[in-house]
């Protein structure tokens, strides 16, 4: 038995260990030479790699108003606090512009019919949603519903069944810093469909029940009149 293990040691274990050692030394030499050839002896070179954000197809959400206007401030508050609008804000190029600023007066004023205004544009500048003054919904949920309806109805190619499968699902680590606006590959914002009003089935059921009972009662009354009282 002892001879067997001795033979095993010399015939298998030692050759295998020697081979592994040889491979390790070869790899070490290759690594050292490639480093020397590529970057010079002992000099640490630095490669500056910048990932440029490919967000040319990102949409734009703009709020035109003034700081002294309560409605403007309310809309801005909605974009920070309403979950859906906050999500939308994170997916687009979001900007607020004071209507008293030279930039607004020179660039945007001719195309703004009233203020405050909230405007969503796609990457090709087409206006997907726009509301100003009294057109702006009274609640954050109302605004979200209106924007989401407009966004979803503008997606003319949403019927392609394979589109969703190919969409990337980014999972950045560490989490992106929401302020300033995260740099990512911009696409059309993905919003939940606006809430559809719940149909009150209980109420309809009660109504139908009362209807049936009324019909039965009416028929019974009529029958009783004809049967017992005569015409």
């Amino acid at each position: 038995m002892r001879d067997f293990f001795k033979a095993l040691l010399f015939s298998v274990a030692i050759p295998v260990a020697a081979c592994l050692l040889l491979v390790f030394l070869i790899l070490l030499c290759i690594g050292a030479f490639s480093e020397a050839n590529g970057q010079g002896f002992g000099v640490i070179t630095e490669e500056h790699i910048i990932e440029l954000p490919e967000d040319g197809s990102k949409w734009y959400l703009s709020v035109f108003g003034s700081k002294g206007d309560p409605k403007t401030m309310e809309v801005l508050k909605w974009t920070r606090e309403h979950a859906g609008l906050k999500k939308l804000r994170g997916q687009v190029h979001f900007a607020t512009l004071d209507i008293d600023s030279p930039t607004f007066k020179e660039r945007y004023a001719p195309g703004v019919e009233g203020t405050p205004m909230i405007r969503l544009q796609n990457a090709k500048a087409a206006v997907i949603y726009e509301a100003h003054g009294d057109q702006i919904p009274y609640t954050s949920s109302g605004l979200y519903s209106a924007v989401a309806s407009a966004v979803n109805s503008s997606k003319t190619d949403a019927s392609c069944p394979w589109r969703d499968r190919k969409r990337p699902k980014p999972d950045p680590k560490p989490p992106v810093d929401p302020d300033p606006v995260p740099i990512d590959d911009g696409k059309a914002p993905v919003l939940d469909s606006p809430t559809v009003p719940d149909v009150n089935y209980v109420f309809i059921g009660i109504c139908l029940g009362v209807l049936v009972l009324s019909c039965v009662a009416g028929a019974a009354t009529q029958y009783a009149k004809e049967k017992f009282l005569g015409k």
Partner: protein
Amino acid sequence: MKFSVFAAVLLLCLAGAPILHEATTVSNGLELPVNPITPVVAERPVINIPMCNREANWGGGSCVHASVVALMRWQNRHALAWYWRKTYTGGESANGLHQKMDEEGVRYAYTVNGDAKFLEWACRTRRGCAVTCRGGKHMVALVHFDNEHAAIIDNNHIDRIQWMSRKRFMSEWHNSNGWAVAVIYAPCAPLKPKA
């Protein structure tokens, strides 16, 4: 029988009322367009910096800073642009500018090897970039760059946009060390297309 028919109609009206009410609440009185997509003519130049946001060269040779300040304003960083305009002046090298941007926490990207892809990226994402010209002695803002044409705003003549062929621009840029630098924030929203 008449009673039952009347009751039925009445109850159906009552049942329908809350549904109709909900529907009007959702739309909230907004008149959403049936097809909101309208034909659009692309803005040219792509980086259409308004006159009030352009910055003229100051202090006898602050072309690098003037170009950067204009691009900061285009990307809605007015406070940063104001600070930059107030703080920095004079001639600037690539290393010097990048160091200052690092110190100030400015998000930027650059190339110093004349890579046209960088310019294409800068204009594709509507950010624009500052580019060297005149043998590397001057810097201007590149505001348009497509397959055929390029356009610049020279901080010595901010009242006009200078158009040229892509080939001519690339030749000039390559003969000027091929340095380009872009700040990376959200660009100005495009103009609303005319109906």
